């Protein structure tokens, strides 16, 4: 479903080209649960941004669901993100002025789903992440773990092809982390493809496949038949 071919990414600091990703080749199939690991600065977030159609590589090819993505215009990319991808960020990225319910509804607003259906789906999603009783809370009235679960509900609501989670437990304590990770495991069992970015070995253990990055290159790609828990 996801195919990255010979992806290179450089930044220009002034006139100097700083290469970040080197010749990345990566395929992820439907239903997989992949973790991308590596030390800080190794390029994990950069890959995630490319996968999420938020950023474009300097060279290479990205085929998503059989279609080349890189030649698309900005508005088309918005549509792809809206339909194919659910995002979960380390810092939650909820809109502070909206309630949990409204935050979760946002992707449906952009997909032009009508109000009534939107609300029903959002309540379902919040119920699924165990926040049925926090529907009208604003982000400031929620704990970190709860915020991240709202973000997961938001990522799920459009029934995306895959969920991209960049350090989803980075700002959470152990208990909340466990809760969030169990949620991902459960979703994966239901068939949702998950790409998890982390630098914590323990968190990566939840995934069925681990990709190791170092200095912008893939150094290891291993599958676990029996994953923890």
């Amino acid at each position: 479903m996801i195919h990255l071919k010979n992806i290179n990414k450089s930044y220009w600091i002034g006139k100097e080209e700083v290469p970040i990703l080197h010749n990345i080749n990566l395929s992820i199939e439907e239903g997989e649960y992949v973790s991308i690991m590596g030390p800080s600065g190794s390029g994990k977030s950069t890959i995630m941004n490319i996968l999420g159609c938020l950023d474009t590589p300097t060279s290479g090819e990205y085929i998503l669901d059989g279609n080349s993505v890189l030649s698309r215009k900005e508005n088309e990319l918005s549509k792809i993100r809206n339909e194919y991808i659910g995002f979960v960020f380390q810092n939650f990225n909820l809109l502070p002025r909206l309630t949990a319910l409204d935050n979760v509804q946002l992707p449906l607003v952009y997909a032009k789903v009508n109000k009534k259906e939107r609300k029903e789906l959002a309540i379902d999603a919040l119920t699924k992440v165990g926040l049925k009783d926090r529907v009208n809370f604003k982000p400031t009235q929620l704990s970190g773990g709860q915020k991240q679960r709202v973000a997961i509900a938001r990522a799920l609501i459009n029934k995306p092809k895959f969920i991209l989670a960049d350090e989803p437990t980075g700002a959470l304590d152990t208990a909340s982390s466990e809760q969030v990770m169990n949620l991902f495991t459960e979703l994966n069992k239901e068939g949702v493809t998950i790409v998890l970015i982390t630098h914590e070995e323990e968190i990566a253990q939840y995934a069925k496949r681990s990709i190791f990055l170092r200095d912008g290159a893939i150094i290891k790609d291993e599958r676990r038949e029996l994953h923890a828990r």
Partner: protein
Amino acid sequence: MLDNLKLSFQSIFAHKMRSVLTMLGVIIGIASIIAIVAMIEGQKESLKSSLVGTGNNSIAIMFQSPEAAAMGGSDMVMMGGGEEDPPDVIPTITDEQLEEAKVPDLVKSIAVFYQNYTQAYHLNNLSDSELYAVDDKYFSIFPIKMLEGRKIAPVEHKNGSQVAMINEATRDALFPEGSAINQVIELNKVPFRVVGVYADEKSEEDNMFMMDAGMGKIYLPKSAWPHLGSFNDIPQVLVQAYHSDQLEEAGQVVADSLNSQLPATSTWQYSIPDLQQIMEDINEFNQAFTLLLGGIASISLLVGGIGVMNIMLVSVTERTREIGIKKALGAKRSVILWQFLTESAVLTSIGGIIGVLVGLGGAKAISYFAHLPFAAPVPAIIGSVVFSMAVGIIFGLIPSMKAAKMKPIDALRYE
């Protein structure tokens, strides 16, 4: 769209102080427009009603030379110079003529009267007075309130009796002590008997505070006019219409009817004042004023608009992350564009509405303290709100486009 409006109000109310300061330019601009327009409108209304008497739906018809008629017919507008002498014999208007001119459902009443100016005497007392030689119909158009005595009786109107009704000012001048009723006064050395005293239109307060309690005014029967030695006076005609919007039509009908009875050789004709012309003169004067006002308003709106643009740029920067999140979740450029355009337009529209209220309040206060007329200028109010919304959209365009064009990755990374 509704969600956008809701969000706009939320973010505007989230920064109340900032929003009000931003709106200040728009508020001042709109308030000054509304205040000045309200004053001009009020002036216009009162001028119009003083010219044509909208209060009682009446219009004055004038018998005048062709040149005078061509100049718009208003004595106010035309100040002497080149005025032709009246014809040697001015045809009198008969009751039959009036009956004929009275078109049903249009003309309610026609009053013909003569007007002159004289000095009235009683013993050694003197009063400068305006004389009005009228008939009963005159009082159906301009009712008066009797203070003493009675009105001139119909039979006195018919017979040309030498009787008079005087106003308070005349009474006070001629009869400082004692009653005026049944006393004889001299007008042009001709004796008239006072049958009644009527109230001045002025209010009690005005009489109390002003030494000069107004002009003397005396009513006589029209039929008694010849006794004063005036034979060839120009008749004044007042036409009362049923509806104020038919004023000109009614006046024209009566003027035409009277003209058709004039001798074919008469160059002088009856005509109504050209209200259009008078209004145009007033408008011309107001236009200069409006131009000045427009200048002030556009400068303050320009400054206000730049203020809005500035604050919107700040707002866009502050909400870079929000924009990034929305784009990541699938918001297209237009969604972001409209969000900020709406916010900017709502901001200035609120400013416009506040400006209208402030302007109306200001105009009301000025008109109250300066005793000037006031009228709420509805088109200007609507125009102002629409215009302030347009200011918001125009000056919000650049910040909104900046927001819409942000790359999602840059917006998300923004700290």
